[in-house]
């Protein structure tokens, strides 16, 4: 009997042969003692394997359902705490042009009204990048890369300050209610998956500089708000603010164009899979960035606020990643029972691996390995495979 014919013995046992083949094998078995004996032994092996009941350690099955549930809840909460990632590289240019056109269609009539009464106060800012792209002026829906966002931010500030120095009349009060009453733009398909525009503020409700300084780190904290900025924000700043924060968090180790692994935190875009409740939590996270005071943001616990801030951070270089790693570690120490604790432990390890990638310091890798081993030894570790893969990728180069 050839090797292939012998392999058909397995299929004969399992009744997976066509009738003609089955007949051939049976004819052979009738004449070949060796194959008949082998067939008998193989059937015995199956029976023996079925006879074995595999047992788990004592108490294992009492806790598994609860742990599965906790893991699902934790991943759902963690995904909800993350803002959606920018999808600029996935969205065709025409989509943004269409979004800008829609926004202009809404804003332009109101702007023209104000132009008729006063020097321009709310015209869209056309940046050199816009000119180079030939696209509509950048407004809220232009999610850019980190660098572009920061550059644009500086230019916008410079232009605003220049405008502020020009003598101008205050926009008529009658115009302001009209601006405030402008409907928020419809979410654009393919654009950010959650409405980014916070509720438009009525005149005088723009966050105080102090409150803003309490918001997201870095960009806003150091710049005192001028009167022009406050006026502009009251009219359109809610939309503009999103531009700067739009670059969002960068998950350590994530490639630019590839979403994180399926079902995990950082999967892009996270809110596609999140329930509606997650979108509410994201809006709350946006409010945090706006510097809404803690008393106004009672719905978001402190650990979630800190978690969201850390997720949004943009470390750079080996030193930056080391610092980020230490911040994650500090979060875990401060909130060991937080629902984000497991994710924070994993991100501690991932930040350490990023530090190693950035600086090639073997101590960073050694430290990450030690932390990974400690994590993998935990009974409550819910993402061991993710940690293993991160280590494998880092060590694989």
């Amino acid at each position, binding site marked *: 009997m050839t090797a292939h014919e012998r392999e058909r013995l397995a*299929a004969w046992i399992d009744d997976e042969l066509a009738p003609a083949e089955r007949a051939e094998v049976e004819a052979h078995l009738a004449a070949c003692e060796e194959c008949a004996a082998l067939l008998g032994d193989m059937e015995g092996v199956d*029976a023996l*394997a079925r006879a*074995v009941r595999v047992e788990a350690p004592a108490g294992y099955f009492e806790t*598994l*359902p609860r*742990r*599965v*549930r906790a893991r699902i809840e934790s991943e759902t909460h963690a995904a909800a705490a993350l803002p959606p990632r920018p999808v600029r590289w996935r969205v065709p240019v025409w989509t943004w042009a269409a979004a800008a056109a829609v926004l202009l269609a809404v804003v332009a009539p109101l702007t023209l009204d104000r132009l008729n009464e006063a020097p321009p106060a709310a015209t869209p800012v056309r940046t050199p990048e816009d000119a180079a792209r030939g696209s509509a002026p950048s407004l809220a829906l232009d999610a850019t890369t980190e660098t572009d966002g920061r550059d644009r931010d500086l230019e916008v500030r410079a232009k605003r300050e220049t405008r502020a120095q020009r003598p101008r009349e205050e926009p008529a009060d009658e115009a302001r209610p009209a601006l405030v009453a402008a409907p928020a733009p419809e979410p654009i398909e393919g654009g950010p998956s959650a409405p980014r525009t916070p509720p438009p503020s009525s005149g005088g409700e723009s966050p105080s500089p102090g409150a803003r300084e309490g918001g997201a780190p870095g960009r806003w904290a150091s710049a005192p708000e001028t009167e022009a900025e406050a006026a502009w924000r009251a009219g359109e700043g809610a939309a503009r603010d999103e531009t700067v924060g739009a670059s969002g968090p960068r998950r350590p180790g994530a490639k630019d164009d590839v979403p994180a692994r399926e*079902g995990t935190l950082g999967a892009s875009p996270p809110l596609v899979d999140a329930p509606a409740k997650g979108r509410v939590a994201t809006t709350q996270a946006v409010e945090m960035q706006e510097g809404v005071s803690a008393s106004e943001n009672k719905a978001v616990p402190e650990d979630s606020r800190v978690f969201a801030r850390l997720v949004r951070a943009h470390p750079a270089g080996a030193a930056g990643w080391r610092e980020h790693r230490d911040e994650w570690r500090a979060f875990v120490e401060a909130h060991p029972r937080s629902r984000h604790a497991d994710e924070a432990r994993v991100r501690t390890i991932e930040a350490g691996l990023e530090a190693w990638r950035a600086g090639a310091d073997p101590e960073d890798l050694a430290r990450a390995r030690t932390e990974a081993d400690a994590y993998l030894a935990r009974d409550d570790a819910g993402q061991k495979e993710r940690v293993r893969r991160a280590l494998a990728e880092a060590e694989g180069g």
Partner: protein
Amino acid sequence: MSAEVRDETFLLARARQGDLPAFEEVVRRYQRRVYGVALRIVRSHALADDVAQEAFVKAWRSLDRFELGRPFGPWICRIAANQAVNHVRSPRSREDPLPEGHAEVRASQGSPLDAVLDREAQQVLDAALETLPAEQRAVFVLRAVEEMSYAEIAETLGLSPGTVMSRLFRAREKLARAVAPYLGPAGRPRAGEGS
């Protein structure tokens, strides 16, 4: 449809709507089977625990793709088997030999000597399973223990039915050589039938 299937369908329908306690009950019903599939393939309790959790979490996220009314067991076992094979393919995975006594042989219907021989046969089978390549082991477990068809196994592991047949034969041949001394003249275990 039997009452049990109706009950399970009801639970899964609730779970689909986001009812986590209902899904927790589903987990309770299938955890042993899922863990068993995982453990037989990955050969480590820690890995099997990971695999079992991931399989259920994945099932939760994919419930909208599950056809209500069909048996849930084969579906979740396929997810678990897939996860288990992916685990052993991972360069960081470690297969620790299972401790002695991790498995229980069903009560022998024969003499005390038969019980001893059964236990020995099981240990020899275990050791032989350990030496199989992970994918052969996965194919064997899904066929011999879960009794999946070749087509189901092929779909689960991303193989052709011909490859399933080939790997299954090689796995059985190797295991049969290892436990042959413990098998009776007709190739059956010495005491009692399997399942």
